[in-house]
């Protein structure tokens, strides 16, 4: 098995989910290489050796400075075709999903996504994919090479095993259409706002709150419990609550002792950011909401009735 791992980076750091996938690839065995694409990123490449890459390919070009997917498809298509990797692995992210998908079309290569494990079975690579709200686990495979895989964010932890990677540069010819999009503003990690990652108790609100002003129900409960307030992507994108409080695949990953989800359906995007919480309580009026599949205590009901009562009971108990 010859495996290439797409190593995503942001503000001068290789991202943990990518390094986690690299560590997993090293564990599966065979020849494992990483690839770093960007501008002024050569120093980053060497760091991947400590996580299991024997070799790291680098395309360092101004066209790769902005984190846009299409120039990266050009780069990977060339590298994979020339080096003949049989597997290309990505840690899922907004960028990586588009890169993997574009590469799938360019190479006519099969892509399996949302994988939560990769195993060798009778000499074949098999991916494990939870489907239909995680109610069934599907074993997925590939009928040809290269095999492309997107691994659900946070699935594998990086393991620092030491070792040095040989760094090798390669050139890329970019397609015109790949350079057509430009990034006018690029996101930067936000340092403002409350820290929810260290909180023991989190009360989170989703679109089921109905209106931004209803976040006060969540805030009051969080205050009574001495916890922090979190939000879903849907409500953050709608401008109801600040991005710094967002839990999910895009957003923060939290694992408090207690997580109370109010009006949150439990989409995968949110689930991956909070599923390792100790006790998960969900209040939702939709009995079919996926969150009821993975919470510990679920209440089907109107949060406008339940949450204020709960706040009052918690206050009484604490006083």
């Amino acid at each position: 098995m010859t495996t290439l791992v797409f190593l995503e980076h942001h503000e001068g750091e290789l991202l943990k989910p990518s390094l986690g996938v690299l560590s997993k690839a090293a564990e599966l065995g065979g020849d494992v290489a990483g690839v770093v694409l960007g501008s002024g990123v050569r120093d980053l490449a060497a760091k991947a050796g400590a996580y299991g890459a024997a070799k790291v390919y680098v395309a360092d070009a101004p066209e790769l400075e902005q984190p846009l997917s299409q120039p990266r498809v050009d780069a990977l298509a060339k590298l994979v075709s020339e080096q003949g990797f049989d597997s290309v692995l990505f840690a899922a992210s907004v960028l990586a999903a588009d890169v993997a998908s574009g590469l799938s079309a360019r190479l006519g290569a099969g892509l399996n996504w949302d994988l939560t494990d990769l195993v060798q079975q009778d000499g074949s690579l098999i991916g494990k994919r939870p489907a239909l709200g995680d109610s069934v686990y599907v074993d997925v495979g590939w009928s040809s090479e290269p095999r492309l895989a997107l691994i659900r964010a946070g699935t594998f932890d990086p393991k620092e095993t030491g070792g040095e990677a040989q760094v090798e540069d390669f050139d890329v010819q970019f397609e015109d259409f790949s350079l057509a999009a430009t990034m006018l503003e690029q996101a930067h990690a936000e340092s403002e706002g409350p820290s929810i990652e260290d909180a023991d108790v989190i009360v989170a609100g989703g679109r089921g709150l109905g209106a931004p002003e209803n976040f006060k129900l969540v805030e009051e409960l969080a205050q009574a419990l001495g916890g922090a307030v979190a939000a879903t992507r849907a409500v953050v994108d709608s401008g109801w609550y600040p991005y710094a409080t967002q839990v999910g695949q895009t957003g923060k990953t939290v694992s408090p002792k207690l997580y109370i989800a109010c009006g949150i359906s439990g989409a995968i995007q949110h689930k991956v950011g909070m599923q390792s919480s100790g006790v998960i309580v969900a209040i939702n009026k939709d009995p079919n909401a996926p969150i009821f599949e993975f919470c510990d205590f679920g209440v089907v009901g109107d949060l406008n009735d339940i949450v204020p009562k709960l706040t009052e009971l918690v206050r009484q108990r604490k006083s």
Partner: protein
Amino acid sequence: MKIAVCVKHVPEGTTHARIDPSTKRLNRSGEGAINAFDTHAVEEALKLKEAEGGEVVVVTMGPQSAQDSVRKALAMGADGAVLITDDAAAGSDLVATTTVLAAALESEGADLILFGQQAGDSDGAVLWAAVADRLRRPVISQVAELTLSGGKVTGKRQTEFGYDTIEAPLPAVVAVSDAINEPRYPSLKGIMGARSKPQRTVTISELGVDGGAVGEAGSKTTVEALNDPPPRGDTVKIEDDGSAAEKIVDYLAEKKVL
């Protein structure tokens, strides 16, 4: 301005959908509906049309029953539809599906191609980038705010680090987030008018796509086995009868997290 919107017909109530153990494919025999995420793409297309003029064409690939989803989009206000339906296309994966979709979209010649943010049944959130690559067009995904001006489309979108703003010249492919708008409900007039709008049904060969490039033959991924999810701790699920708050407090006390 011509806008094509790609929609998917998915089984209704995805949490209760089941995979057929014999074919290892999603059982599509029950009631279906337009993928809810795609209604945001339809809505955005209609808003753009209302502001800029032009036409909105819905493109879907699926069984004959996908006609229901097409009709919903037409009732919302789309002007016409193309349904790609062919037994040979059943079981198509990403590679095969995007080969077919790209062929259909190529012949539509739209200035803007819109997608919803994911498929409610497969959780797939990748289709647009593969289609854009096949059509050799720029792509912007996860767009929560979209503007058109001077032959360019600009999208603001959320990533793991905050918000990016990306601009691309038309023709372009854009996938929108479900936060971008609130999809309208079809009006009675819209529902009545949907039937008389132009709807074309095309087969794979009519699109000039080789039969070997679609369905399982054209797919590069396989489904090997279906397994039960790993067991997790007992989940208690109750319906609120007025005492839910007390029950939550009791549970939290029992779990020693209060």
